[in-house]
């Protein structure tokens, strides 16, 4: 236990470390996001992430949102296990044809009003995989999309800005 406490003390609070290049931008985006969520989503946004055909690169960066640098939860955003608990579906990948029906079902299970974010070049346009016998291409070819976050993969800060754009846009 002592070893753990010592290491925690040594590490300190990373989220408040002196801002490096990205960190100032991160704080600004985060605070704005928090405000938008307070005003329009009663302080919390529940996201269900669906990998509909990704190469898993996008997932790695979505995971990074939870690391101590970004700590997405402090802005009121959290990932939920069921689409039934979600405000937003965050979809990655071109939609593989083998995932087409599963994605539609997840979308139908999400209660209205719901929003869909297409994260990553593949989700936005089909990306490098495009449309083929095995791929439906862009997410919007399968379910309606409200917001696109390009990038291959989008960096955590770009994902955060995308969430902000979505939250800020809601009336």
């Amino acid at each position, binding site marked *: 236990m002592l070893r*753990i406490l010592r290491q925690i003390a040594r590490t300190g609070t990373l989220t408040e470390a002196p801002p490096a290049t990205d960190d100032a931008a991160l704080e600004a985006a985060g605070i704005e996001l928090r405000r938008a969520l307070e005003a329009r989503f009663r302080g919390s946004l529940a996201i269900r992430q669906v990998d509909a055909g990704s190469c898993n690169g996008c997932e790695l960066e979505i995971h990074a949102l939870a690391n*101590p640098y970004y700590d997405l939860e402090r802005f009121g955003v959290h990932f939920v296990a069921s689409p039934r608990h979600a405000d937003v579906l965050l979809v990655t990948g071109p939609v593989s044809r083998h*995932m087409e*029906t599963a994605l539609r079902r997840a979308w139908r299970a999400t209660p209205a009003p719901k929003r869909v974010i297409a994260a990553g070049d593949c989700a936005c346009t089909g990306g490098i*995989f495009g449309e083929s*016998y095995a791929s439906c291409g862009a997410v919007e070819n399968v379910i309606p999309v409200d917001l696109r976050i390009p990038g291959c993969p989008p960096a955590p800060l770009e994902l955060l800005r995308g969430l902000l754009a979505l939250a800020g846009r809601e009336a």
Partner: protein
Amino acid sequence: MSRLDWLSGYLTRLAEKGAAPRLEPVQTLGPRVRRVTLLPADWGTAAEVAAALGWRWAGVWGDPLADACVVRACLQAREGFVVLETETALEDASLASHTRYYHGANRLERHLRDLIGVRFRGHPQDHRWTRHQAWGEDEHPLRTDFPVAGRAPKRAPADTGYPFVRIQGGAVYEIPVGPIHAGIIEPGHFRFQAVGEEILRLEERLGYLHKGIEKIAVGREPADLARLAGRVSGDTTVGHAWAACQAMERAAHGTVPPRALHLRALLAERERIANHLGDIGAICNDVGFSFPHMQCSHLREQWQRRNREVFGHRLLMDTVTPGGVARDLPADAMTTLRGDHRALREALAPVFDVVEDHPSLDDRLLSAGILNPTDARMLGCTGFVGKASGQDLDLRRDHPYPPYDRLDVEVPALDQGDIAARVQIRMREVYISLDLMDRLLDTLPAGEVSAALPEPPAGADGLGLVEGWRGDILCYVRFGADGRIARYFPRDPSWFQWPALERLIHGNIVPDFPVCNKSVNGSYSGHDL
């Protein structure tokens, strides 16, 4: 035994069994890779003899031509590799299955059958694997007459009717999970049969991420193939891009400047460390111990930021290109990177110290999810999964490709095969990679970082063999006309690690499945292609 003996021993035994193997006189696929052409009737014997010699089976893939199919399988001996090759007509094509000698062949043979239509006689599980409902049973997307766009524009229905094995008995119940899982993970379906908490059987149903990579690779330029290869499995972008470039370079007889080779290795070791850090933390988190997770994920984030700064991409995508690497190190990078290596060693010591020896981790990770060495060998597991279960294999040491031929690569090996062992191997590998990277920087040659790839003649082919962070990556490339790709097949190590998960989960409890799965961490995308 000399280089030649190992091969002639194999060929003699084949001949004794009545087979008529033909050895290609020169090595065209790559150094230490010999091509042996067989009659279709001798296909099964070739595996039987190799198994008797204790060789490893490293993959099978088809290469469909207009009305025939060339089928190739790769065998790995201590001294080198053999690529078996046979040609069969497409109509009613069938070969003897290798699965009875090598369990790891099971799904690759079914994948080949689904995509090209060559059947494997005597296969113990002769039903579809990669195919769900997006194309019909008698259609084969990789055949040359099958359009890239497919033939069925209608919505693909959910997969049904897959013949899962059911266990009968009053107290047995079944738990279906997925394809969409309750987390930020790739999709796949798991079917558990359990009694109480205990798992009697797990059956995987994968293929959900099949996005036609092998088909859309056809007709690409080399640079374009490298980009695609870097997206076979995003977490292994360097590994797959390197394997594809190595295969293309071997086929085209291209040379890569020594400085570029060093930088590739630097990138590959950075990728290994990033993934190990992420997964070691996540494994601890899966048993409710968040301290290492927070520590490792912040170190990983720093690492990724440095990737972006020095190499241009947080995950290192598109850094390996045919003939070299995309860019040279910035002027001050040497000092920065050396400093990073030192800092990471220091930061990890207290964290790994806790992971190594903490009662709450011992309790959950020791003797959980045991993969016994026999299963690991039958399946052909490599990487940390194999190394933790007695498979002392690593291409960087055993069949070193430059620049590893000039570096001594230490390979850790254990044989208890549990989650704790897999974690230990990965912690050790982080330190080994850090040392390797220091040595790579110390000996970094001057010069160019890229050379033009000569245009290969139509039909030239090559085999790439690279040790990715998950294990050995095999990659076959054949060129067609105009220097464009006619066939690309990357075999991710996940093909052998997914079936290992089915075995090591046996007898564990359902709540331990996530941590068992994470400790193996197969790639869904790299497997489904």
